[in-house]
C-alpha cells in the first residue's frame, strides 16, 4: 500500500498514533537483582521522576507489562527465570539492559555470571554504567521511546561464538504452550 493512497495515509497515521500512545504509557517490569536497583529507584523517585516520560507505573506481572527492565547482574542460576519472564510478556514488548552487568557481564568475568543478557533474550536498549546515573537512564528511556514510536523491536540474540547476531527463537507464550503440550500428552 503506497503512502499516496488514502488507506495508506490512514494506516501510517494509525501506526504513528499507536506508537505515540505506547511510548508515553510504558508499563515496565523491573527485574531488579543487584545494586543498579538503587539507581533505578532514584530514577523512579520524585527528583528525576520517570513518570514525566509516562513510565512511572511498574507492574510486577509480566503479562501486564511492555518493557522488561533488567537491572543488575544476571547469573546462570537466574537465567532460565529471566527467559521465562520474557516469554510470558505479551507482544509488543521491549527489553532494556540496565548497567554494564546486563550489557556484557561487567567486571564479573567469573563462573557464575552471564556475559550479557543479549545471549539469552533480545535487547533493545543498552544503558551502560556501573551503575548508570539517572540522567543516563532517562537518556536510554528516551531512545527507547524513539524505537517504540517507530515500531522497531530487536529480535536477534548475540552469539559469542560467531560474534554476530542470530535470530531469537521466541516462544509466544511460555506457560500456555507448555500447558497445551501437557494436555496433548494426556
Amino acid at each position: 500500500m503506497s503512502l499516496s493512497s488514502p488507506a495508506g495515509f490512514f494506516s501510517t497515521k494509525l501506526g504513528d498514533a499507536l506508537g505515540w500512545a505506547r511510548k508515553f504509557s510504558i508499563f515496565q517490569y523491573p527485574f531488579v537483582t543487584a545494586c543498579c536497583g538503587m539507581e533505578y529507584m532514584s530514577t523512579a523517585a520524585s527528583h528525576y521522576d520517570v513518570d514525566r516520560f509516562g513510565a512511572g507505573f511498574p507492574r510486577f506481572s509480566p503479562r501486564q507489562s511492555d518493557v522488561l527492565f533488567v537491572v543488575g547482574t544476571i547469573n546462570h542460576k537466574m537465567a532460565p527465570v529471566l527467559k521465562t519472564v520474557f516469554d510470558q510478556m505479551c507482544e509488543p514488548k521491549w527489553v532494556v539492559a540496565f548497567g554494564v552487568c546486563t550489557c556484557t557481564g561487567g567486571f564479573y568475568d567469573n563462573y557464575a555470571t552471564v556475559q550479557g543478557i543479549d545471549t539469552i533474550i533480545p535487547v533493545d536498549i543498552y544503558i551502560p554504567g556501573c551503575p548508570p546515573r539517572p540522567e543516563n537512564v532517562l537518556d536510554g528511556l528516551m531512545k527507547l521511546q524513539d524505537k517504540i514510536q517507530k515500531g522497531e523491536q530487536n529480535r536477534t540474540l548475540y552469539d559469542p561464538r560467531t560474534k554476530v547476531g542470530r535470530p531469537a527463537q521466541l516462544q509466544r507464550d511460555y506457560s500456555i504452550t507448555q500447558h497445551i503440550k501437557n494436555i496433548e500428552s494426556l
Partner: protein
Amino acid sequence: MTALEKVQEKFTQDIVETHVFRGDETVVVRPSALRAVAQFLRETPELDFNFLMDLTAVDYLFFAGGRIQKEFRFEVVYHFFSLKNNIRLRIKVPVDEKDPEVETLSDLWASANWYEREVWDMYGIRFKNHPNLKRILMYEEFKGHALRKDYPFNKRQPLIGPLN
C-alpha cells in the same frame, strides 16, 4: 585462663599447633578430635561458645605461588563467639585432598547447616552426618566446585544460552 589454654589442657594430644595474634586465639586440631573439641567449647560453662559466627574453608593448592607446600590441601575454619563471656576462638581443621571429609557440627550449632552446605558447594568438602548436604548457591547441574583453585575462575556452565 583463656579459652585457648583450656582447650590445650584438655586436648593436648589432638592439637597440631596454636597461635595468638593480638588477642585472637587460633587452634589447629586433628579432624578426628573436631567433634570432641566442639562439644567441649559448647558445653563448658566458662567457655559457652553459643554462637558459630563463621564456617568456611581454604584451598592451599598453589599457595603462595606454589612456594609453600602443605601436607594437606584444605583447611576448614570455624569462628566461635561466646555472647555470655565475650570471647572468641578460631578452630582450624586440616583436610586431606584424597578424602575431604569432616564431621558435621550442624546438630550443635544450627547455623552450621547452611555454612557446611556452602563449603560443600564451593570446595567439595563433605560433612559426615549432615542432614541435607546438597548445593546451596550453585545449581544442581553445576559440575565441580567453583572455589577450588584448580577450577578455572571463568569456566561457565550455562543452563540456557550459549557458552561464553
